[in-house]
């Protein structure tokens, strides 16, 4: 604890911020990670838990010394602080050392063993005896610090900012990064400290989204279980799935590809600063124009931009359709039922009062027939189908359970990864325009399932061609294999099983519907989802 006492003394006896930072740096350079963590918690006032009250500490002192109580009170009146008064009296009564002892007990040992052990002693006589025994091994100044730690009243004239600055300079981590890491519930111990000062962007836990809950295509099986009272029906919008996070006075927006798109949608970020602290909502980013929802093509104009111009903001104004709440009052509520989460979502969204953030409407349906009729009206509502969610379901991770179903108007699409490219013929012979797409199998391998030639516009073709040339893995004659990175939504007119194809399925007239820049390769569909689609389609026909 000597180093900690020295640090306190140095901070306490200078008004220069530079000197304070120097003292802090010197301390953190030499301290163990666990001591550093305790120090960090103490200096930034994150430990206010008092083990023993000032009153009990005084009582212990009186029990051991038989000191007149009035005299202690006179001293307290003069000094104004119990911890200090008692340390000065320990000095006066020779219950301490004049100079520091050779052996040193670490701050961690004090905080994790010695002080808790002292607090645990039930017998008042024994407890006060132990206190005095602890004092006797320390100097008056060390006793002062110990008393402060015991009574949880530790304060010293240093701002959190200076502590962060010192850590930043010692560990070479940007100050705002440390500030972020300090803004949650901090633990004690080596690992906690490692998280604070790590140079890697370790789970910047506050900014991170939860894993997204994904939907399965609606099928026969799910239809059998359909009970209108138990299911929540919503429109399925064709936008960018996103989680909005409001924590520690910061706002983040994450796409399903776990890409931080906060900067891409400044107007939404602005609105979401009004979310209550400790909120995470799930929903869809869309372009809202003239009271309607624009097509995905409009939304694409907003993607992949570092700087968003005024013109773009005006032409393609973004909005948010909120449909789930994952964190409420800083509490992870994903294990609550959709019914409960929906109530909290409503509470949260109604607080925002902005026409750019809407609550996804729920629709009452009494029968399966009504459900199907509703689905056919989706286009009128600028939607691509229905979402069917179980009211009693939790917010599950990935596609694990069948809590969420999607029921598209045009269900014949799959998101696939570009795997091979080949140059075209004729006018396009110098460009790579023929593509092979793949889906994931259970072993996390990409299995080719369709070839497509059309669907991209010229600028997209040029962009993709340039990318293909730079990211070729192998060349087989005119064919190049490329890194698995880009996801495309592939539409087709029929799907059937096929023993001839490695994928086990064959699709008719595949075409590229759009380049899903909002998705990562991992987000593409699986062969399993293709099989589900196959079953769903065959039921319909």
């Amino acid at each position: 604890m000597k180093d900690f006492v020295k640090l306190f003394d140095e901070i306490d006896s200078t008004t220069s911020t530079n000197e304070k930072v120097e003292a802090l740096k010197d301390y953190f350079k030499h301290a163990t990670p666990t001591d550093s963590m305790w120090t960090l918690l103490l200096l930034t006032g994150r430990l206010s838990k008092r083990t023993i009250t000032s009153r009990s500490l005084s009582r212990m002192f009186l029990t051991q010394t038989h000191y007149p109580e009035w005299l202690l009170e006179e001293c307290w009146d003069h000094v104004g602080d119990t911890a200090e008064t008692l340390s000065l009296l320990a000095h006066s009564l020779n219950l301490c050392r004049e100079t520091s002892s050779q052996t040193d007990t670490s701050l961690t040992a004090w905080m994790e063993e010695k002080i808790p052990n002292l607090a645990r002693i039930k017998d008042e006589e024994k407890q006060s005896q132990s206190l005095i025994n602890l004092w006797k091994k320390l100097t008056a100044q060390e006793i002062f610090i110990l008393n402060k730690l015991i009574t949880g009243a530790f304060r010293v004239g240093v701002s959190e900012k200076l502590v962060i600055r010192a850590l930043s300079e010692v560990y070479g981590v940007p100050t705002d990064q440390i500030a972020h890491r300090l803004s949650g519930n901090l633990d004690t111990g080596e690992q906690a400290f490692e998280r604070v000062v790590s140079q890697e962007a370790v789970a910047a836990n506050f900014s991170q989204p939860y894993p997204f809950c994904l939907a399965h295509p609606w099928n026969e099986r799910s239809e059998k279980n359909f009970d209108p009272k138990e299911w929540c029906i919503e429109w399925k919008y064709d936008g960018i799935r996103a989680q909005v996070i409001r924590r520690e006075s910061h706002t983040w927006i994450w796409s399903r590809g776990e890409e931080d798109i906060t900067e891409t949608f400044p107007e939404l970020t602005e609105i979401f600063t009004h979310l209550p602290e400790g909120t995470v909502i799930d929903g869809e980013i869309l372009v809202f124009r003239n009271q309607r929802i624009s097509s995905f093509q409009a939304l694409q104009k907003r993607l992949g931009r570092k700087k968003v111009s005024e013109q773009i903001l005006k032409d393609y104004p973004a909005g948010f359709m909120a449909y789930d709440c994952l964190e409420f009052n800083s509490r992870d509520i994903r294990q609550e039922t959709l019914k409960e989460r929906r109530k909290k979502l409503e509470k949260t969204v109604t607080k925002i009062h902005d026409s750019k953030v809407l609550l996804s409407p729920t629709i009452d349906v009494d029968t399966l027939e009504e459900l199907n009729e509703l689905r056919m009206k989706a286009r009128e509502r600028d939607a691509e189908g229905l979402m069917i969610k179980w009211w009693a379901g939790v917010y599950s991770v990935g596609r694990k359970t069948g809590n969420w179903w999607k029921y598209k108007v045009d269900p014949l699409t799959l998101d696939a990864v570009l795997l091979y490219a080949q140059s075209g013929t004729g006018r396009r012979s110098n460009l790579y325009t023929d593509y092979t797409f793949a889906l994931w199998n259970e072993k996390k391998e990409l299995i080719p399932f369709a070839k497509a030639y059309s669907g991209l516009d010229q600028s997209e073709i040029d962009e993709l061609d340039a990318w293909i040339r730079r990211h070729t893995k192998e060349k087989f004659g005119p064919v190049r294999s490329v890194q698995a990175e880009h996801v495309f939504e592939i539409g087709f007119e029929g799907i059937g099983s096929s023993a001839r194809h490695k994928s086990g399925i064959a699709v008719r007239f595949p075409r590229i519907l759009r380049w899903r820049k909002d998705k990562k390769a991992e987000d593409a569909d699986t062969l399993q989802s293709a099989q589900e689609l196959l079953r769903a389609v065959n039921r319909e026909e």
Partner: protein
Amino acid sequence: MDLIRATNEGLYCPVGDFYIDPWRPVANAIITHAHADHAHWGSRQYYSSAKCAPLLQLRLGEDLPLQTYLPSEKFPMGKTWVSFHPAGHILGSSQVRIEYGSHVWVASGDYKRTPDPSCDPFEVVPCDTFISEATFALPVYQWDRGEVTAKKILEWWQQDQERPSLLFCYALGKAQRILAELARLTDRTIYIHGALEAITNIYRHAGVKMLPTASIFDHDKGYSFKGDLILAPPSAHRSPWMKRFKEPQTAFASGWMLVRGTRRRKGYEKGFALSDHADWNELNQTIQETQAQTIFLTHGRTDVLQRYLTEQGKTVRLFQTEYDAHEEAS
């Protein structure tokens, strides 16, 4: 009978017809020490210890009507015999012993028991009645030995060689004690404020071993005083005099600096608890050792000490005086 009583002029001894440390002009003034609250101008005849004389003359004038005596040398005053005995407070500071028939009273002025290389140690003088100060009469006040504090001062000064170190302290007694205490640890030259020069010279003439000193005007304007220690009186703190030093680190040496809150209120960065008064234990120890049955308290936390001694079975009375309870101003 009361050999001494408090009057408007000061502590008066009727049978000896003299005052001790009177604050108004009187006929006969016996002076315990040269601090301003004890040595006032205007009396007809002054009496002091020999070592106190040069300081009194510096304060009150070269031609001061002054008679001096060696320690323990008895001299008659009226119907009493009076003698000076070292008080350990500052150079020449003395207790005044008054003997009248079988009665012995001792007026101690200001005193301390902590060893101090700049003055003679306190002598315990057995007496019936002891007149004591109570400046630091709270148990929280417990001084470290001078060398412990001196080491802290040295450390503070040495650890910042990039800035001047300004240490503020009272000009008479404290400054010279620091110079004497530090002389055991270093041989560096210390710069002193003008207000300290004459007093320091008197100490040097008296044979007190101190560090060499120099005036800040020994250097031309460009000199930075980086890494130097400068002693100055508290009145110089935040005065134009301080502008001479660029971004100095500042500290104050005084008994009051023991308490963190006081340290912060005074506006110094660092405080060193160094006092020329007795701490709580020294007061009690001294009162015990004199074997006095009756104690008079003059200034300071007389309320606390009175209650405490009364609970120990002592007879304790108070004298209203005009002695400064906040340590001497200069």
